[in-house]
C-alpha cells in the first residue's frame, strides 16, 4: 500500500469507507459469535478480543492514518511570552473534516517540544456550512475565552491568536508556564476528550480534564490588564505579542458561548451549565482583577457635593 500521491480528499474518503467496513465486519462477527455463546457471556469482552486481532483492513486503516499524520503541517501559531520562542503546533488547518478533529479518535502528532508549553484551547467561528464528517467534531465556542483556573497560576501566561481553518476562523489560546510540570490540573486538548502529559518517570500518559477546567471566561479585558493574557494580531506573521487593550480586535466579539458540535454535517451545541457562570465570577473575583472600587479616588459621600452635570443654569 503506497499512499504517497494520495490527495487529502481521497485519503479521508478511503479512511471513512474502510473504518465503516471494519465496523460493519466487527458487528457482524459479534452477532455471529453471540449466537454461538450461551446467554450470560459478556459480549463486550468478545468484542475487545476480536478487535485486538489485526486484519488487512486494520493494517490499511493504520497506514492511511500514518500517511495523514505525516501530512500534518507545523504551523507557527503563537509565541511564548517568557522566552519569545515561536510555538509551532501541528494542526490540520485545511478543514474540520480532517482526522485531527475526530473528537474520540483523533490522529495527531505529539505535543510541541517546548519547555514552557502548557496547553492549547480554542474556539471557532464557522463561516460556512459545517464540514461533513461521520465522526464527532467538537470545536468549542464561537468566540475566544480563557480558563481562569489555569491562568490563575502565578507561573502561567496565555497568548490569544487566530488563524484560518478552511473557511472558518479559529481563535486559539496557548498557555505557557515557567514550570509546566508543577501544573496538575489541565484542560483536554482542543477538540478531544483527553490530554497527554509526562509522568514522573517521563512517560507520556493521558488523563481527562477536571470539571473546573471546563469553566470559561469570555471577559478578556481584565486578563489583559492584569498582564496575564497577550494577543497577536490576525495575519501577523511576525507573531508580535501585544498587551494593549485599546486596539485588541478580540474584545467585544459576539457569538455563541456554548460548545459547538458537528457530526454528519449538522451543527449542534452543548449548553453551558448555568452554575458555571457563578463559579467563573467566584474565581475571577478571587483574582482581585476588578480594581474599580479601589481606583475611585473620591468617596461616595463627596460625589454629592460636586456640581451637577451641566453646571449652574442660573448664570
Amino acid at each position: 500500500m503506497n499512499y504517497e500521491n494520495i490527495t487529502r480528499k481521497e485519503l479521508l474518503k478511503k479512511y471513512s469507507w474502510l473504518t465503516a467496513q471494519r465496523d460493519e465486519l466487527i458487528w457482524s462477527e459479534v452477532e455471529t459469535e453471540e449466537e454461538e455463546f450461551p446467554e450470560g457471556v459478556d459480549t463486550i469482552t468478545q468484542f475487545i478480543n476480536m478487535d485486538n486481532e489485526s486484519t488487512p483492513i486494520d493494517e490499511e486503516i493504520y497506514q492511511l492514518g500514518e500517511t495523514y499524520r505525516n501530512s500534518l503541517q507545523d504551523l507557527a501559531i503563537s509565541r511564548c511570552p517568557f522566552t519569545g520562542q515561536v510555538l509551532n503546533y501541528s494542526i490540520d488547518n485545511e478543514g474540520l473534516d480532517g482526522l485531527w478533529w475526530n473528537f474520540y479518535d483523533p490522529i495527531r502528532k505529539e505535543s510541541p517540544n517546548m519547555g514552557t508549553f502548557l496547553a492549547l484551547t480554542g474556539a471557532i467561528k464557522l463561516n460556512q456550512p459545517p464540514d461533513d464528517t461521520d465522526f464527532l467534531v467538537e470545536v468549542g465556542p464561537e468566540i475566544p475565552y480563557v480558563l481562569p483556573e489555569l491562568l490563575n497560576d502565578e507561573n502561567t501566561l496565555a497568548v490569544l491568536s487566530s488563524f484560518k481553518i478552511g473557511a472558518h476562523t479559529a481563535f486559539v489560546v496557548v498557555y505557557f508556564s515557567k514550570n509546566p510540570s508543577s501544573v496538575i490540573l489541565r484542560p483536554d486538548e482542543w477538540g478531544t476528550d483527553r490530554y497527554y502529559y509526562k509522568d514522573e518517570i517521563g512517560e507520556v500518559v493521558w488523563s481527562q480534564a477536571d470539571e473546573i477546567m471546563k469553566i470559561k471566561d469570555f471577559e478578556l479585558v481584565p486578563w489583559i490588564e492584569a498582564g496575564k493574557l497577550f494577543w497577536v494580531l490576525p495575519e501577523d506573521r511576525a507573531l508580535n505579542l501585544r498587551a494593549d487593550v485599546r486596539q485588541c480586535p478580540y474584545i467585544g466579539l459576539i457569538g455563541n458561548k456554548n460548545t459547538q458540535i458537528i457530526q454528519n454535517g449538522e451543527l449542534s451545541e452543548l449548553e453551558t451549565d448555568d452554575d458555571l457562570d457563578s463559579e467563573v465570577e467566584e474565581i475571577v473575583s478571587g483574582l482581585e482583577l476588578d480594581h474599580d472600587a479601589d481606583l475611585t479616588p473620591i468617596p461616595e459621600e463627596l460625589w454629592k457635593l460636586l456640581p451637577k452635570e451641566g453646571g449652574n443654569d442660573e448664570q
Partner: protein
Amino acid sequence: MSNNNYSEEPEAIYQINVSDIGPIFLDYLKLTPSAFCPFEEELRTYNKGSSIMSDGALGVVKDDDFINAIKIIANPDYRLEIIIGGGMVPLNGIRVYTSKKEGMNSVVSVSPGFENSHLLQFFNSPANFARWFTEVVAGKVEDTVQNFMPPPLTLGGLLYVLQAIDAFRRVSYQNLLEFKTTNEPYILTDEFQSSMITSMKSLDIRWLLPSFIALVPGLNEINWELKDEELNYLGSHDFLIPAKEQGSGKDIFLFGEAGTVMGSEYFRSWISSAGYRITVVSSKGEQVLEQGYMSFTALANHLFKIEKGNDGVWYLNHQPLTTEGFLKRFDELLSDTLKYERNSDGVLPISADSEKPPSIMTTATSQISKFCTNCGAKLLDNSKFCTSCGKQTN
C-alpha cells in the same frame, strides 16, 4: 549581626579602610590574591610589611566571618556587578563575590563605604543576598502589570521604547511647568529623534534611556547598531501613534496605550534602575555569563535580560515582576549562574612586589578613626556609642 538561616540582613557587615587592605590580606592573613580580587589595584601597589593595621581592623581581624569574607574576595571565581542609579537614587555600585575554592556557599558584597573605605557584607548563601537586595532595592509590588514590552524585543527596539517613555516624561514635565492639562500629549517627530541622540550621549541617569546605557556594565563591549526599522516596535506595540499637529501640519507622535501607561508609571513612580553583569573564572579565564538591566517602580520590578539570538541579533527579555516574583527570578539567576564551571586558578595571582622594609606609618593611617568592635562601623571621634549598632565604645 544575626544568625538567621534565611535573613534579609547580612550575617555580618565590616567597613575596611583602604590603608588596611594590604596589611590584612598580605601581612596578617598571608594570602595570595588573584587578579580577579576587587582590591587588585591596592594589593598590587602595596609593599609587604610597609604599613600596620588600624585599631578598627585589629578589632575584627580574628573574627571567623571576617576571615572567610577576606578569603573569598582574595580568590573569587564568581562576580556579580550591579550599578544602581536613576529615579530617586544617586549613582552607586555593589560587587558580589563567591569562591568555590574557599568552599562554603557564602557570598560577600563589596561596595563603597564612608570616606576612604569599603563596605563588606557577608551572607551565608546567595539566597540570603538575593533576599537582602530585593528588600533594599526592589519596589514593593503585589500585583502583576501588563507587559507592554513582550519578546521579541531587540536591543535597538528597547532603546526606542525607553526614549518613548522619557519623551512622555519630558512632555509631562513641560505641561506641568506651563500649567497645561491635556488628554492627548504629543511630541514632534523631529524632536523625538534628535533628543534621542542627545539623550544617549548625555549619560544623564535621571532619564531612563541614558540610565540603561550608563548602568549596564560592559554594554559598550557589545557589538550592535541602532536600526531605523527597530522604531517599528513603538508603532506595532502601541507606544507611539504617528499623527499631524493641528494647524501647523507638522509630523507628531501621539502616545498610545503602552506609551501612556508606561510613561505615567515612570513619570510618577520611578524608584531606581540597575545594570548587572555576571562574570565567572574558569580554566579558560574570565567569561561573562549574563548581562541585564533592572528598573524598579511603584508598579513593577522590570527585569531585562540581554541575550544574543541565533540570528546574531541582541535581544532583551523583559518581564514585569512583583516583589516576590523578582526575588524568585533573582535567586534563580544567581543559582543558575553559580552552577557554571568555576575555578579561581583561571586567573593569575597578583604579581607580588619585592619585600621592602616597613616604612614609617603614614599620616593618613595614623588618623584612621576607630571602628566598632561589635558591628565594624566607623566610629565618630570621641563618640561614646556606635552610631550604627548602639554598642558602648571603650
